[in-house]
């Protein structure tokens, strides 16, 4: 009974469950739960307990008050499997006879708590702020009442009417249920399908029952299970204190109380009853964990990198290159490849764009450069030569000498890329001191200078702010300043403007361009937007399904695309230069990017390509292309020369409104990489 107000230990998890649409696997219900050994056993025990308790009068070997004074306080024996109590009564019979009441009473508590809490939460979430504030204040008061002591007071006044008492407990707990469910209901109501149903004119009751409540089901199940466990503990705790059923009616609490008095002469007595009660609560909580989808084998944070040995140590092909990536492969550990055979070189002061749609591996490639791949994903082959030094296979401690000092990174979501708990000043000063070896006062001066250099006018004020007080554009500037603290020579920018407004994007791109011009910084920029690439990049590598399909100078690739995929991407872009008419139809590509693990041999784009032929399904090596004397590139298309001769363009009219999408449109198409939370 140590936990009366529901410990909100699952608050975070509950919220996660609520905001994520239920993945299909979770809908399969019970069998899925049983796959976890713990919860399988838990469910088995609960089923056994319920059946055994409610049928106890039919099978119990002795009556509950049948005394065998010759055999008092005995251990397990053939006659009494679980021994006997101080009056010589059979413990086995008593334990299971006692089970029915706590199970019923705890169910009642849960029903009362949810019967009040959920409708209240649904109503508050629906009615909006004013109603919500009134109900929330009311429940805060109820939550602040000391429930255990209040229950004792209730018993003191009305006596031991256990159903009534536990019902009142349910009323008290309903405030906690309300609090948890309100958050869930509000987050479910923000889902757009609720709005869509409301626009359709569905009544509010139907909206709640059909759309809001099902979205809350997981959390409700988890909380109900936990609450059941707590009610069970409280009920037996009350019985332990002497507020349980009267003798000779057995109860777990009283039996444990008796055991505590005979701990000197019959320690065995505390084992069976305690074990049954503990097992039951453990089983219920295990069930709750399983429903919450909390795998106990949670992903851990080992910062151990795979021990891949660089596959080539030959001299760099491009003697001027500061960074050279050769045949880089990235894979999920023990899973599919995410990136294969990516090669490119970057000269000082140049900007390289990695461009492609979601799931093409461009972000994975960029992150591999700094050894910052997500857990469970690692470089599986190839080489990353940074100023002649091999980075693949380096331990984190050695990579830390490179990170920040030589290569830095900015990411897609500037608002979450800064630590919300620390001020901007702290987050800048700390790496400045470490990377530049200066004192605090000097570091603060440098921090202000850095902020000014990234176009922040009131640097002193911004230094004092916390990340949540910054706008997206401002936060990205701070992130760039942070990346510059160690005076790096290479900046990796992962979709640095995707989350920003278009005018802010233009400002950030101008800033990056100025940095490249003024400091000789090299940049690898990941983007899905060919316009951004055209704006800032010197070179570009177009990626599709984990490999580079076309590379070369930006002017060569974008003005004269050789690979059908590049052609299609350009044709799909609705941004046409001024003066040109907007196309009547946009080019589009049938189907979706094949997920990692199901890439075909030969050309991976063949299945979606307008120009695919038989020969495209056999493996081949990329052809050199876009050579202009200074930079070279490649094209991974076996028909490249043929297509170039024919002056083909990607036909815009192949996918219409009534044409099926893709060859197999109902393939469960998950456009993101299989690793959770990894987006490319």
């Amino acid at each position, binding site marked *: 009974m140590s936990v009366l107000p529901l*410990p909100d230990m699952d608050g975070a998890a509950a919220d996660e469950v609520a905001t994520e649409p239920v993945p299909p696997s979770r809908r399969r219900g019970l069998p899925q739960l049983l796959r976890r050994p713990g919860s399988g056993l838990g469910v088995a025990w609960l089923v056994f307990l319920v059946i055994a308790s409610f049928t106890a009068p039919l099978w119990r070997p002795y009556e509950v008050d049948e005394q065998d004074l010759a055999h008092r306080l005995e251990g397990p024996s053939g006659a009494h499997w679980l021994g006997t109590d101080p009056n010589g009564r059979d413990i086995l019979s008593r334990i299971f006879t006692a089970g029915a009441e706590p199970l019923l009473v705890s169910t009642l508590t849960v029903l009362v708590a949810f019967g009040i809490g959920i409708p209240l939460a649904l109503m508050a979430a629906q009615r909006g702020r004013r109603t919500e504030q009134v109900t929330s204040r009311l429940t805060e008061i109820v939550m602040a009442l000391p429930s255990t002591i*209040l229950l004792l007071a209730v018993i003191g006044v009305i006596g031991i009417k256990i159903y009534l008492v536990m019902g009142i407990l349910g009323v008290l707990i309903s405030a906690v249920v309300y609090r948890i469910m309100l958050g869930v209901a509000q987050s479910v109501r923000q889902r757009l399908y609720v709005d869509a149903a409301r626009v359709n004119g569905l009544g509010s009751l139907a909206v709640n029952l059909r759309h809001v409540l099902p979205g809350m089901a997981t959390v409700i199940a988890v909380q109900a299970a936990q609450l059941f466990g707590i009610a069970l503990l409280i009920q037996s*705790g009350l019985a332990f204190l002497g507020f349980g059923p009267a003798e000779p009616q057995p109860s777990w609490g009283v039996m444990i109380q008796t055991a505590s008095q005979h701990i000197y002469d019959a320690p065995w007595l505390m084992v069976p009853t305690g074990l049954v009660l503990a097992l039951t609560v453990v089983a219920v909580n295990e069930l709750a964990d399983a429903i919450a989808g909390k795998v106990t084998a949670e992903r851990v944070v080992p910062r151990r990198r795979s021990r891949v040995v660089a596959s080539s140590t030959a001299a760099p092909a491009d003697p001027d290159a500061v960074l050279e990536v050769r045949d880089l492969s990235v894979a999920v550990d023990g899973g599919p490849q995410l990136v294969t055979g990516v090669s490119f070189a970057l000269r000082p002061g140049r900007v390289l764009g990695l461009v492609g749609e979601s799931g093409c591996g461009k972000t994975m490639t960029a992150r591999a450069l700094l050894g910052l791949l997500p857990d469970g994903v690692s470089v599986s082959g190839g080489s990353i030569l940074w100023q002649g030094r091999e980075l693949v296979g380096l331990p984190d401690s050695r990579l830390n000498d490179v990170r920040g000092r030589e290569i830095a*990174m900015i990411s897609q979501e500037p608002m979450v890329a800064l630590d919300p708990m620390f001020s901007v000043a702290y987050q800048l000063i700390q790496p400045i001191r470490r990377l530049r070896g200066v004192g605090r006062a000097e570091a603060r001066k440098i921090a202000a200078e850095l902020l000014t250099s990234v176009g922040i006018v009131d640097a002193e004020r911004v230094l004092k702010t916390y990340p949540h007080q910054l706008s997206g554009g401002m936060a990205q500037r701070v992130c760039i300043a942070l990346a510059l603290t160690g005076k790096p020579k290479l900046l990796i920018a992962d979709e640095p403007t995707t989350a920003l407004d278009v005018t802010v994007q233009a400002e950030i791109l101008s800033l990056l361009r100025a940095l490249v011009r003024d400091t000789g910084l090299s940049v690898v920029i990941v983007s899905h937007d060919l316009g951004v690439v055209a704006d800032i990049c010197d070179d570009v590598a177009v990626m599709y399904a984990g490999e580079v399909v076309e590379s070369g100078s930006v002017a060569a690739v974008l003005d004269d695309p050789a690979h059908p995929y590049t052609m299609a991407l350009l044709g799909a872009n609705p941004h046409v230069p001024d003066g040109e008419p907007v196309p009547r139809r946009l080019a589009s590509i049938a189907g979706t990017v094949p997920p990692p693990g199901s890439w075909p041999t030969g050309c991976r784009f063949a299945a979606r390509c307008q120009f695919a032929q038989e020969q495209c399904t056999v493996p081949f090596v990329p052809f050199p292309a876009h050579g202009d004397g200074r930079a070279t590139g490649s094209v991974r298309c076996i028909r490249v020369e043929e297509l170039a001769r024919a002056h083909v363009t990607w036909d815009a009219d192949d996918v219409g409104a009534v044409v099926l999408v893709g060859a197999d449109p109902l393939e469960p198409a998950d456009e993101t990489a299989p690793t959770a939370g990894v987006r490319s």
Partner: protein
Amino acid sequence: MFAYLARRLALAVLTVLAAVLISFLLVHATPGSPGAIRAGAGGTAAEIARYNSELGWDQPLWRQFLDYLGQLVRLDFGTSLIDSKDIGADLGQRLPVTASIALLATLLSGLVGVLLGVTAAVRGGRFGRFITSSSGVALSLPAFWVGILLVFVLSLQLGWLPATGYTRFTDDPVGWLTSLALPVLTLTVGGAAVIARTAGAGMREALRQEHIRTLRAVGTPEWRIRYLHALRYASVPVVSVLGIQFIALFGGSVIIENLFALPGLGQASQAASSSHDLPALVGVVVIATIVVVVTNLLLELVVAALDPKVRTS
């Protein structure tokens, strides 16, 4: 911030008032009367009536309530129906016992729980899984049963600690500590498990955050990332749960005090409940509510100090 604090304080006062009102109404809903309880089984009707009018029971309800509030403001909780002792003085003596158990258990739970949870999140692997699943079991165990097991092992088998009883701090500080050791340990088993889970989940979530990658990208040392940035991020839920733990341990002290024969508030409420000592019951409820309300207020201040988002809004 000031207006916010004022609002929280007003709500706190309202909560205490609500607690007083509820327990007051509860007492008055009882079929018997305080006079009958004081007079005992052999009391005559005249005796009961005299007691009742002495206690003001014959006054209108609202009058009695206002009188009682007036008493409370003067910290007068009335006298016990059973032994006519001053309830305020009695509870005043008991409060430190319960408070020290709850406080020590909370602190120890926090220490052990954070240590285990952070280790589980950082080390991971089989060890991390072991901590996560065993804390799942530990938080499900009934405290009174854990208490008995601990008495059996630590007191009866090993003889390290006294099984029951209470020594005052002023009488013997070391004896005080050893007399509290078993109850505190008992409560810590479940408490530390809850904290370990919260801290573990918090750390895991913190280490998944985008800003952790930003820190890695500038070569921040791993210890700094884990024990400064991630731990700070995880500290907000941990502190909240610690507050809830304290409240729960305070309320749940009834059973522990019964088991270890400790003269605390819980024991008083059990006794008052068994003997229908109505003024004492109301007193316990009021004091417990005040403890909860004050803890909640402190909790909000601590969270505001930890989380700049709360602090600056």
